[in-house]
């Protein structure tokens, strides 16, 4: 993959869960694109750091538990957009249900994961700004990366 801009990237949601948490499992799901996404944001796994300072020698740093992170996309509110309506449903959901998400890059590469939406606050800022939604989606599964075809 050569370097590219983010222009053309998409974020999509599905209420279904994959039979297997791999490319094939996610590919079998039906996703609904979320419209009017301005930014998707940074996402990916990071590890907790466990430090150990031996009496002799350099401080050691070990990888602890893994956290697959979260995304906080920035979205212009559109009450007619199906993807936003589904995302709002996931935010209103008081159960522990996992929703499936798909990020598609301009070259066709995809990132799949499941998560829970912990909120979808709306932002009415200045007169010359768009009404925005800023959902917070916590990623609860390993991110499945599918390269461009």
């Amino acid at each position, binding site marked *: 993959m050569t370097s590219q801009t983010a222009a053309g990237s998409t974020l999509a949601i599905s209420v*279904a869960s994959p039979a297997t948490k791999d490319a094939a499992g996610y590919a079998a799901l039906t996703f609904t694109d979320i419209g009017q996404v301005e930014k998707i944001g940074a996402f990916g796994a990071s590890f907790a750091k466990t430090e150990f300072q031996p009496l002799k020698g350099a401080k050691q740093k070990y990888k602890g538990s893994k956290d697959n992170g979260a995304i906080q996309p920035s979205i212009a509110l559109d009450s007619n957009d*199906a993807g936003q309506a*589904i995302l709002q449903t996931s935010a209103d959901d008081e159960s522990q249900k996992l929703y499936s998400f798909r990020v598609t890059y301009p070259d066709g590469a995809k990132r799949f994961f499941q998560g829970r939406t912990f909120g979808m606050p709306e932002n009415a800022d200045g007169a010359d700004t768009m009404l925005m939604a800023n959902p917070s989606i916590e990623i609860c599964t390993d991110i499945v990366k599918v390269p461009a075809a």
Partner: protein
Amino acid sequence: MADTDNKIRAKVLRTFNDAGSETTFTGGQDIELSKGDFANYQAAGLVVAIETAEPADTQTRKPRG
């Protein structure tokens, strides 16, 4: 089996747009959706399944004489 199989007849509860397919669904419209699309739209309260109509009562009543 992909969940894009098996069409479901549904009624659109309110007008909405699907950004991915760039399709507008008009409120009150009867449509056919894949199982996966139906599940997504139904969860958001956008569509409901059209129940299969019950067969008409074909028995005739005897007139009282």
